């Protein structure tokens, strides 16, 4: 059974001023997050992803549709009951949202106090969490004495305090430099693997999805326009918006402008061969070209690894007789996708 299940969920905000239009932030979204998933939701700012994630822990009420968490329907529940449900859902934020008036220890202890734990239980749990995120020596420091990466680690420890089954990460790495982003993502991976916490990751950066997500939904204009297995979406994005996101991390088929540059620099026929895990191996393709007596050069592209599966696009400049090229490409096309440069 899905841990989080959204069915035809919409969220509309009233018009900001009189005579204005109501704002539809989330529009008829249906998606399921299974236990153990790292579910990425990607979209440009304003796509509705932050609103969507706030519907999951009911910080915002949905305008219509049904949202369930762990089998319980959230829509229509009174605030008091929603609060007890929120204890079982952790959340981390882009701006960390730590309590500046409390020490690292006080921040991590806060949700436990809300949950009504005893002092000794809190002390044990907080030291355990600080050790997990590697901040034991910072327990008595205040947030403004920490670096961005350390702050987010405090945020993660705080969010995990009550051992939630679900962690919501709202642009959790967007305020961090690449090095720290990597650290935090590795930590989230450990949270997912070691504690089995299901994670929903909101981001506008495709490399975040690439490095930790198992499934992904692409949002645009409040709608989920594409979703599925990360490998599928990366290797064969169906939607123009998804393709743009994929192109930010994967060198795919060269754009017309890039192609013009390639043509200037290389003679022969320019062809892109797309590989997917399980298709023909590169070796087989290159062997085919060599056997046909063709000269070829790799001019663009690359191979990517997503969740241990490889895919990629290699653009070649091929020189040789037209007939031989045609025949070789036909044989390759039986096993891998061949795209002629337009």
């Amino acid at each position, binding site marked *: 059974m899905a841990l989080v299940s959204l069915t035809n969920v919409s969220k509309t905000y009233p018009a900001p001023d009189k005579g204005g239009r109501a704002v539809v932030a989330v529009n008829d979204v249906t998606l399921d997050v299974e236990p153990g998933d790292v579910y990425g939701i990607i979209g440009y700012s304003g796509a509705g992803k932050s609103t969507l994630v706030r519907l999951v*822990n009911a*910080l915002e009420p949905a305008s219509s549709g049904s949202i369930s968490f762990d089998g319980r329907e959230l829509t229509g529940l009174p605030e*008091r009951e929603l*609060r*007890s*449900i*929120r*204890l079982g*859902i*952790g*959340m981390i*934020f882009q*701006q*960390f*949202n*730590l*309590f*500046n*008036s*409390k020490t690292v220890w006080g921040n991590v202890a*806060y*949700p436990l*106090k*809300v*949950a009504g734990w005893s002092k000794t239980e809190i002390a044990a749990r907080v030291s355990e969490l600080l050790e997990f995120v590697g901040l034991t020596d910072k327990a008595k420091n*205040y947030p*403004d004495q920490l670096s961005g990466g350390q702050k987010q680690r405090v945020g993660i420890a*705080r969010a995990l305090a*009550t051992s939630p089954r679900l962690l*919501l990460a709202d642009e959790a790495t967007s305020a961090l430099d690449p090095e720290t982003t990597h650290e935090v993502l590795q930590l989230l991976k450990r949270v997912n693997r070691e504690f089995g916490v299901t994670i929903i990751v909101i981001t506008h950066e495709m490399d975040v999805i690439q490095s930790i997500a198992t499934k992904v939904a692409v949002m645009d204009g409040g709608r989920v326009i594409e979703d599925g297995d990360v490998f599928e979406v990366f290797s064969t994005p169906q939607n123009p918006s998804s393709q743009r996101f994929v192109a930010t991390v994967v060198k795919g088929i060269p754009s017309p402008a890039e192609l013009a540059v390639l043509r200037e620099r290389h003679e022969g026929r320019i062809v892109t061969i797309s590989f997917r895990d399980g298709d023909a191996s590169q070796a087989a393709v290159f062997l085919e070209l060599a056997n046909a007596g063709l000269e070829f050069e790799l001019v663009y592209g690359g191979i990517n690894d997503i969740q241990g599966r490889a895919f990629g696009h290699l653009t070649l400049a091929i020189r040789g007789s037209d007939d031989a090229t045609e025949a070789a490409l036909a044989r390759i096309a039986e096993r891998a996708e061949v795209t002629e440069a337009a």
Partner: protein
Amino acid sequence: MDRLFELGSEFWVAAAETLYMVAATLIIGGAIGLVLGVVLYSTRPGSLLPNRVVFTVLNVVINFFRPIPFIIFLAAVQPLARYVIGVGIGNDALIFSLSIAASFAISRIVEQNLITVSPGAIEAARAMGAGPVRILRTVVIPEALGPLILGYTFIVVAIVDMTAMAGFIGGGGLGNFALVYGYRQFEPAITWAALLLIVIFVQALQFLGNWLARKVMRR
């Protein structure tokens, strides 16, 4: 100058009266102002406990009383003071009126400082399942504590200023002392002695407030 030494003991009594009036007003008016400010903050639309009726009424009442010059307010609430604390003149009547006036001013200062608390911190607390009253008590007020102390320091200086009007309804204090023994008896030295002591009080209070705020805000 000689006259000042003759009046020595009365001067110190006046100083003690000023301190008493300031302290009492700060405690009573400060507490009421804190409550009103928190109510104003939390009932405004979109806040933790939005309530349009409470917010609007309180907002209008505070806006009504706040611009009234204190010396007129003092006269206007005299019957109320007589009714509530049994006396319409003297230091205690002044404390009564001043506490009311100060609580309105303090409520605005409290409201303004609470508004500056990061919505993100509040959202984080909500996401952890904390209720609105707990959030006010354990997140909003502690997060705003430093600026709140500075706000209270600002208001306590204004309270020192207003206690000088105690003489108007038969009270004492340094302001009254300066008027009665200095100004009316053509003894500028006495006026200046009272004035200097008031300045010293204000400096000390400001220093204390800054120090406390710095301690709370750290660095």
